[in-house]
C-alpha cells in the first residue's frame, strides 16, 4: 500500500546521472568517433569521414589469429569455470554459517590479489613444475580468476533456490539423478547461462595474465597491445575496439536479461 509512486528523489540526482554518464562515456565514445576519422593522428579537430580503418581491419591476418586464440581460451574457460562454480556453490551452500563464511572467503580471495602478483605466481608455478607456456596456461590462469565470479552469480541463485522442489520431485517418485535433470538444472539454467556469458567475457577481455602466461600465441587484448607500437595502426585499433564494445554490450545485455528472467521465475516460485 502507498508504494509512494512519486518518490523519485531530489531533482539534482537527475542532473548528477546525466553528468556522470557523460563523464564515463565521453572517453569511450571517442573510440567509434575517431575510428571513422580520416586521419592517422587521433586528435581534434577531426578530418573527413572514412571507413578505410574498418576495411584495413578486415585484412589483418594476425587479428583473426588472435580472435581465434581468444575464443579457444574463452570458450573452455567459461565452461570449466562455470562447472567449477557450480560445484563450489554447491559445496559452500552445504556448509553451516561459520564454515561457510571462511570458505567463501578462501574461494573468492584470488579476486583481490593484484593480477600482476597472481601472474608472477602462476609464471613461477609453471616454470617450477616444468610446464610449457601456451594457450593452456592462459586458460588455467583465467579459470582461476573466473571461478569466483561464477561463484558470485550462482551463489545468490542457489541460496534463493527452493530446495523443496527437489524434495517434491523425489516425493513424486523420481530418482535423485532424474531430479537433478528434470528440476534442479532447468530451474538453475538462467544462472548457469549468465555465469557462462560472464566468465566468457572476463576471459576474452583479460590482458595481464594472458600477457604473462601465453607462449607465442596472442589473444585479442595482447594483439591490440602489440599493435599500439605502430602509430599508423592506431585508427584500425580504434575500429577494433569499437567492434569489441558493441559485441560486449550485446553479450552483457543478454546475460542481464537471462539473470532477470531467472529472478522473476524464482520470485514467483517463492511467492
Amino acid at each position, binding site marked *: 500500500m502507498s508504494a509512494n509512486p512519486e518518490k523519485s528523489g531530489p531533482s539534482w540526482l537527475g542532473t548528477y546521472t546525466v553528468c556522470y554518464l557523460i563523464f564515463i562515456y565521453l572517453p569511450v565514445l571517442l573510440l567509434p568517433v575517431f575510428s571513422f576519422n580520416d586521419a592517422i593522428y587521433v586528435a581534434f579537430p577531426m578530418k573527413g569521414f572514412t571507413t578505410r580503418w574498418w576495411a584495413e581491419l578486415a585484412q589483418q591476418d594476425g587479428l583473426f589469429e588472435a580472435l581465434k586464440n581468444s575464443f579457444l581460451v574463452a570458450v573452455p574457460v567459461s565452461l570449466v569455470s562455470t562447472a567449477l562454480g557450480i560445484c563450489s556453490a554447491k559445496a559452500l551452500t552445504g556448509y553451516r554459517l561459520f564454515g561457510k563464511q571462511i570458505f567463501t572467503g578462501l574461494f573468492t580471495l584470488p579476486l583481490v590479489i593484484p593480477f600482476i602478483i597472481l601472474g608472477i605466481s602462476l609464471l613461477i608455478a609453471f616454470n617450477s613444475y616444468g610446464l610449457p607456456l601456451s594457450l593452456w596456461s592462459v586458460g588455467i590462469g583465467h579459470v582461476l580468476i573466473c571461478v569466483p565470479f561464477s561463484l558470485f552469480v550462482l551463489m545468490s541463485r542457489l541460496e534463493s533456490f527452493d530446495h*523443496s522442489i527437489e524434495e517434491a520431485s523425489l516425493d513424486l517418485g523420481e530418482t535423485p539423478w532424474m531430479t537433478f535433470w528434470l528440476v534442479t538444472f532447468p530451474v538453475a539454467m538462467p544462472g548457469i547461462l549468465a555465469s557462462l556469458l560472464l566468465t566468457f567475457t572476463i576471459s576474452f577481455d583479460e590482458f595481464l595474465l594472458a600477457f604473462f602466461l601465453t607462449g607465442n600465441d596472442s589473444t585479442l587484448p595482447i594483439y591490440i597491445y602489440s599493435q599500439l607500437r605502430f602509430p599508423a595502426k592506431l585508427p584500425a585499433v580504434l575500429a577494433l575496439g569499437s567492434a569489441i564494445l558493441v559485441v560486449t554490450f550485446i553479450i552483457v545485455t543478454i546475460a542481464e536479461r537471462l539473470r532477470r528472467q531467472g529472478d522473476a521465475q524464482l520470485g514467483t516460485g517463492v511467492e
Partner: protein
Amino acid sequence: MTERSFISIQDVSKHFGDVRAVDNVDLEIAKGEFFGLLGPSGCGKTTLLRMLAGFETPTSGEIFIDNEPSAAVPHFLRPVNMVFQNYAIFPHLNVFQNIAFGLRKDKLSKDELTRQVDTALEMIKLEGYGNRGAHELSGGQRQRVALARALVKKPKVLLLDEPLGALDKKLREQMQLELRDLQRELGITFVFVTHDQEEALTMSDRIAVMADGKVLEQGAPAKIYERPQTRFAADFLGSMNFIDGQIKGIDGDAYVIETDQLGTIKAPNTAQKFAEGEKLTIGLRPENIQISPRASKVQRENSVNAVVKTAAYLGDRAHIYVVLKDASEPVLVTMQNLEGAISNTLESNLDVAISWSDRSVLMLKNS
C-alpha cells in the same frame, strides 16, 4: 499394533545433534483418518511428518505404514505423498506438467495421461488451467495444484505440511472445509501439521498435541478441547481461565474445591483421581461462563459477583474481563452477540454476576 492402525509410529525419536526434535513418540493412525499434528513452532511436528515422508530417518524407533516397516524403503518408493508448506510448485513447468510430473514413471499413453490430469484438475476445480504457468497462479490455486499433483499418485497416505498457512483468513476457512470434504470423498488417510488450533479442530478426525518433541495428548477434537488432560493443551487450544485450588473434600459424586478466586466450587468426580488436600488447577473455558446483571435470577449451580474490568467487542461475540472482589487476576468470559444484546455488559466497572455449571469445571493435575 492393533488391527485398526494403518500408520504405526513406535517409540520414534529424532535427534539433531543435541536437540531432541522428536522424543519417543508413539502414535497409531487409522486408515482413512484425517489426523492433525498440532503444536507450536519447534515442537517437532514437521520433523515427524518428514520422517513419515522419508526425508528424515528416525534416530531410534520404527514406523510402519500399512504393516510395512518403512525404514528401509527409499522415499521415492513409499506409498505416501506430500504437499509442501510453500507448495513447491515446479516454477519452470505449467499446471499440466506439474500435475503430470509424478505420472512419468507410469508410462501412460498420452490420452490416458491427459485424462488423469484432467480428472485431477476437475477435482481441484481448475478445469482449463492446464496451460497456465506456475507464476500465473494465486496462492489458493498453487495450493490446489500441489494437492492434485500429490493425489494423482494415488498415495495410501497424504502428508500435508501447514497446508493452508500461506493463505489469507477467509480463503483459509473455505479451504479447510473443502480439504476435509475432499478427504472424506477420497477415503485416503491424511496426516497434516499445523500450529493453528482452529485449523486442527476444524479438519481433524483426531488430533495429537505436541510440545518439545513429545505427544502430550491425542483424541477427537471435542475431547481434546473440552476435556484436556494437560495445562499445555488446555491453554494452546483456545482460551482458558486457570484458577489455583485445593481439594477440600468429596461430596457424593462431586469434589469440593477451595479456591482463593472463586470461593468454594464443586466439580464432578470423574475418572481422574484427586486426594483430599491435594492442590490442583481449575480450568474454566470463557464460553462456559455466563455473565448477567446482578439482579437477574441465575439458574446455574455457581454464581459469583464480579465487576467488568475491560471488554473487547468483536462483533459476533465479546471478550469480557471481569474481576472478583478479592482477586487480582481477571477472569475472561466470552459471550456470543445475540441480536446486539452484548452491548449491555461491555461497560467498565459494571456490576455483574458470573455463573457456570459444575460440569464445565475442568480439573488439572499440578505437575
